[in-house]
């Protein structure tokens, strides 16, 4: 028979969060609310182009001196260094020691990808396919696929979310750290855990760090929400910086999709903290080879925009302000939702709504209640009970609160 694709190729399940948005779009009901996809929305329920972004976009389009060449394989140098500084702090001792480098990548996904491909080839010896990768239970649904496709065969959950008490299962987390084989790789959420919105406290991070150091566990941070969690960049970077101060070599996959609103320009950065400059250079040289056979070199638009913003004091200040605007709106919606549920007398405790941080909240609603909300009330949320706080507005929050009340009391 003529060569071709297998006739029996199975139809892959659609990505849940995109299916949710597709269903939402098709829904004709005027009261519909989308609490699914993780993107910021204004109080009018619209995507928001950050004012600073609009300004810099225009600057770039009008700049005739810019060349249109390929970026270097590792990306725009001024983007990489300023992005790493955002994560580690400009006074980071590791930066001063010249042992911090970075690779510009295609969003947070791309940063995870390059990091994973590197670790599989070079982490400990030259074949790390059997090295366990630990991801939180639950975690962003794509973590598994990225590491698996990079060749890792053993991807395991570590205990994280305690459904009973609706908070962090620290004991379980620490226990899984203890029982992990030495040198295992742990994917840690730098802040604003997706999907639970529950972060360890500083004290809890210290405990986690102690075990990881003792057992030589590798810290691979995923930082997609810096600035979004508390509204303060430095505060949101505390965990990463603490690990650096404890002498860890680590990776930090940064995304600028959310905090710059640059979802579709794919702006990411893989920050590498190495033991010393020599090691750093060797790591980067291998990463360059990996990038070459993945996407060759990264896209310039988004990186240029971020670099200009971070490196220009007035623009940097304006950006921090824009980020705070987004974070503040989220905090307001959290406070109001909790207030309304309490006022309605909705059974259960709702403290977790304001205790959780970032874009997402793990409401604790069960699948049946979620189904009720989607089907009967046209409120779209993930089957896990995760809601995107940005989907709430002053106009729909009463409807949502009442609907949650109904779901909890009748289903």
């Amino acid at each position, binding site marked *: 028979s003529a060569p071709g694709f297998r006739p029996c190729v199975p139809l892959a399940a659609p990505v849940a969060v995109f299916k949710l948005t597709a269903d939402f779009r098709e829904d004709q009901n005027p009261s519909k609310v989308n609490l699914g996809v993780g993107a910021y929305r204004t109080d009018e329920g619209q995507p928001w182009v950050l004012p600073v972004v609009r300004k810099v976009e225009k600057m770039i389009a009008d700049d005739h001196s810019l060349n*249109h060449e390929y970026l270097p394989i590792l990306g725009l140098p001024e983007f990489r260094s300023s992005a790493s500084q955002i994560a580690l702090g400009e006074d980071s001792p590791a930066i001063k020691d010249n042992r911090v480098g970075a690779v510009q990548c295609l969003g947070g*996904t791309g940063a995870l990808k390059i990091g994973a*491909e590197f670790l599989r080839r070079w982490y400990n010896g030259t074949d790390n396919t059997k090295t366990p990768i630990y991801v939180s239970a639950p975690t962003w649904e794509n973590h598994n696929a990225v590491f698996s496709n990079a060749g890792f065969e053993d991807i395991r959950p570590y205990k994280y979310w305690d459904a009973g008490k609706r908070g962090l299962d620290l004991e379980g987390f620490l226990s899984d750290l203890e029982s992990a084989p030495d040198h295992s790789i742990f994917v840690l959420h730098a802040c604003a855990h997706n999907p639970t919105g529950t972060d360890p406290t500083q004290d809890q991070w210290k405990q986690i760090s102690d075990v990881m150091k003792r057992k030589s566990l590798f810290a691979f941070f995923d930082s997609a929400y810096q600035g979004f969690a508390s509204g303060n960049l430095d505060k949101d970077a505390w965990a990463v910086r603490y690990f650096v101060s404890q002498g860890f070599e680590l990776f930090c996959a940064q995304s600028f999709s959310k905090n710059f609103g640059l979802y579709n*320009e794919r702006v990411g950065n893989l920050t590498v903290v190495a033991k010393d400059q020599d090691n750093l250079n060797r790591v980067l040289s291998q990463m360059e080879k990996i990038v070459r056979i993945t996407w060759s070199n990264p896209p310039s638009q988004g990186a240029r925009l971020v670099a200009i913003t971070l490196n220009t004091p007035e623009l940097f200040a304006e950006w921090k302000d824009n980020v705070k605007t987004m974070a503040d709106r989220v905090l307001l919606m959290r406070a109001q939702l909790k207030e309304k549920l309490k006022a309605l007398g909705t059974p259960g405790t709702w403290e977790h709504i304001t205790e959780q941080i970032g874009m997402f909240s793990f409401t604790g609603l069960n699948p049946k209640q979620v189904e009720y909300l989607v089907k009967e009330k046209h409120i779209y949320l993930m089957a896990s009970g995760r809601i995107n706080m940005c989907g709430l507005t002053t106009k729909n929050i009463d409807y949502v609160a009442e609907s949650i009340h109904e779901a909890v009391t009748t289903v």
Partner: protein
Amino acid sequence: MNSEFRERQPIGVKNLSKHGHTTWLPPVRKIKQQISTDPTLTPEYTHILGIPEFTRRATQLALGKDSPAIVESRVFGIQTVGCTGAVRLGAELLRSCYCSSSSWTHVFISLSFLEDSLAGTFKAAGIEDVQYYRYWDAESNGVCVENMLYDLENAPEQCVVVLFASGHRPTGAELSQEDWKRVAEVMKRQLFAFFLMSAQGLCSGSLEQDAWPVRHCVSLGLELLCAQSFSHNFGLYGERVGHLLCVLKQNLLAVQSQAEKLVQTLWSCPPMEGARVVATVLSNPAHLESVKAIAERCMLIRERLRERLRLLGGPWQWDHIIKPGGLYCCFGLNTQQVDFLVQKKHIYLLPNGCLNVSAINSRNLDYVAESIHQALSSKR
């Protein structure tokens, strides 16, 4: 004169204007400015497979609007991060969905001189066994199609063959349409075509002609993949605008869904800016005339280079310089000669003396021609 080249990047890769800079296709700046001030464009994630308008137009560009594959809905396109991204994704898709026998995992790539990341890209996708078929013939300074056909006919069944639709990298040497028909016959029997089309329109000056090999295979009913780049023909190097075309016989939605899964593990969704520009340009036929101008400039340079070399004398033939179109051209130099050009003359070329003709302009033409002449004259 030397200092001009000292800071030069390799005359290997990019399409350069007469001033030696990469340059956008003329309409691009205006379109970019429009995009930057368009209030209706919102910051949302793109669709996993890219901007629908872009993939639709890129598919039409490659196959022609009336292609049977398009009419019969047997084709889908994926916006990728450049041509490399398209090749990587295509390789991953093949690994995941191609063929039922386990002995197929061979990829054949044309024998090329330089360290080629092409092989590395397939290997990274899990396709370890990469073999080479003969292509460039040093004796004739062109393609030896007999050698190529022999190697293809003796390739393992179900093997995947990487073919340059036009604009062969790095030699610039092309197959005639008659040659292509013979290649397609062999492919049809037992091999799978993975086309690379990185400079459609730049080679012959005609978008249709440059895409002919792909369209011919489609007309024969073959399934195939085609990786397209919009770097050279639009000057959008930094924006990484690529496209992976998939022509199937059946089961389109299933393969498409598997492709979506793979994209999620690579870059989640592609970057917007460049693809938006390309989609806008492709929607206006007048814009495409400027692509022709680039091709014409390349041909002019080739003719002038040949003339210069002829005037410098010597036993060598130079017709092969003007035979192909497009960006690349091969002089068949040995390592010492290439070294000489790089070290002593500060002319940075690809191994074996392949070069990008658009990097040659009125200021450096004499220098380049004289240097090549020198290199050949001092043949060891």
